């Protein structure tokens, strides 16, 4: 009896505040925009029959006709993929170095990685504005050193977005890879070298495959949220930076077109389902392998 209550409370909460809202988004994606409050039609007030009748896929069709949307989806995918790769290239060596560090350093190194994670995400992205702008510190430094004569335009371009995503999500890449490398048995490297591997090939043939799980986890933890990012492309990207999170936000607040915004959300969710399911599957396989 009591167990029922224990399951029921969080369950009902989630049904009400998670599942139902999604169903509403889906329903509104099938509605039309209206000059009313709420700014869509039909609503429940029109009666259930009229509700079903008034729903159509018009908004989804609209998404395919205006190439802003499909360009934004593709651009988001591209940006998320490139950022994930860059984060991996920077995060892996750091995680590797941490895993090889002497034991006394580990707690401090961990702390150094975790501290940015607890600091406000918004502030950390904002910090780059002052660095990357035309009058920013980076350009000042480069011009002061005589390396360039004209300021580099980095802010409000895709490059700044890459830097922003890598910067923000770096801890999410480092931690799972570090965990995987830490678990690895050092004697495996010694065995490889004993059997004739050079340092480099031992690394490629043994270390990398064994840290595969950490790499995969880290990549998913960066790619999936990066796909739907809003803050970074808005603050650091320009009007030419197309990311779907930004498009959704602007569609909703600036154009007040809730039905189209909902349709954008539904399509984004559908795109995300594939990596999410893959990620869940991978986590499950890993958990089973460990038992």
């Amino acid at each position, binding site marked *: 009896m009591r167990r029922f209550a224990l399951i029921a409370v*969080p369950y009902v909460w989630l049904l009400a505040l998670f*599942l139902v809202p999604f169903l509403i988004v889906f329903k509104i994606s099938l509605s039309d925009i209206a000059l009313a409050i709420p700014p869509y039609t039909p609503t429940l007030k029109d009666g259930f029959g009229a509700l079903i009748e008034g729903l159509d896929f018009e908004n989804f069709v609209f998404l395919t006709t205006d190439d802003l949307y499909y360009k934004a989806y593709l651009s988001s995918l591209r940006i998320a993929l490139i950022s994930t790769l860059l984060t991996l290239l920077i995060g892996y*060596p750091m995680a590797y170095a941490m895993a090889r*560090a002497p034991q006394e350093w580990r707690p401090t190194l961990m702390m150094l990685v975790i501290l940015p994670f607890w600091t406000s995400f918004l502030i950390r992205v904002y910090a780059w504005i002052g660095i990357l702008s035309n009058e920013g510190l980076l350009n000042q430094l480069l011009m002061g050193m005589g390396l360039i004569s004209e300021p580099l335009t980095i802010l409000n371009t895709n490059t700044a977005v890459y830097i922003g995503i890598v910067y923000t999500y770096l801890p999410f890449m480092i931690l799972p890879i570090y965990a995987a490398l830490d678990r690895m048995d050092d004697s495996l490297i010694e065995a490889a070298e004993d059997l004739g591997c050079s340092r480099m090939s031992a690394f490629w043939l043994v270390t990398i495959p064994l840290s595969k799980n950490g790499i995969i986890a880290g990549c998913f933890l960066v790619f999936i949220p990066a796909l739907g990012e809003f803050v970074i492309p808005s603050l650091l990207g320009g009007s030419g930076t197309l990311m779907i999170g930004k498009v959704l936000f602007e569609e909703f607040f600036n154009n007040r077109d809730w039905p189209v915004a909902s349709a954008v959300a539904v399509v984004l969710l559908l795109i995300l389902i594939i990596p999410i399911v893959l990620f869940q599957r991978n986590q499950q396989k890993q958990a089973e392998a460990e038992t």
Partner: protein
Amino acid sequence: MKRLSPFNITALTLGFAFLYLPMILLVIYSFNASKLVTVWAGFSTRWYAELLSDEAFLDAARVTIKVAIMSSTLATVLGTMAAYVLVNSGRFFGRTLFSGMIYAPLVMPEVITGLSLLLLFIGLGLDRGVLTIVLAHTTFSMCFVSVVVSSRLVSFDRALEEAALDLGCTRLDAFRLVTLPIIAPAVISGWLLAFTLSLDDLVIASFVSGPSSTTLPIKIWSAVRLGVSPQINALSTIMIAIVTFGVIAASLVSKRNAVRARRDAQAAERAV
């Protein structure tokens, strides 16, 4: 003692420099008397004074902290319940849906969560304000709490609960007197995580807050969209200082506990 190779040391140094330089620069420039990044006009704390006398900011800070405390506490309770259910209950009706709902917010883009919740609140006719933000934050935070607590519960020895029952506890007492004290560190971590997430949330709050319930992130956002703002530098420095202090304190505490535990174990083996 292993020494790190030069390559590894370089990787770490460059990496951490990349991570920390922007924050350090923020802190430095918060003391810049000039508004501009291009000019260093001398050391000054005027931005802090301006910030701390700005009523709008202080109001937003108050709202943000209030919302954070309420939502993180509620999220911790719900998240711990969910974690307990997921780890200890075997199959039950609708379990797949439940665990799906619990883990989805981890990967869901905030714009979608925010949009869906706003549509719900509008549909219900709920006025947007502190209540709606708390509801929204609780919902997405509880899944993070659940992840943290359930990873602790998985390694929790169930024999301890059985021993409590065997000695006369009701199920609730067994949880309260035995399980909870032992998993307390994980529950507290969960609370801290939920608190930070709530404190830091911009997107969802933008969707579900009302005119009288502006949060700090929203205020920061409207300030920084126009570029660098020295008051924001000052605010950032304050926030970085608080977090740094907290993380270092937590790190020292856990180090001290580890040392103590090791010493106790050694003493135990000697004093047979």
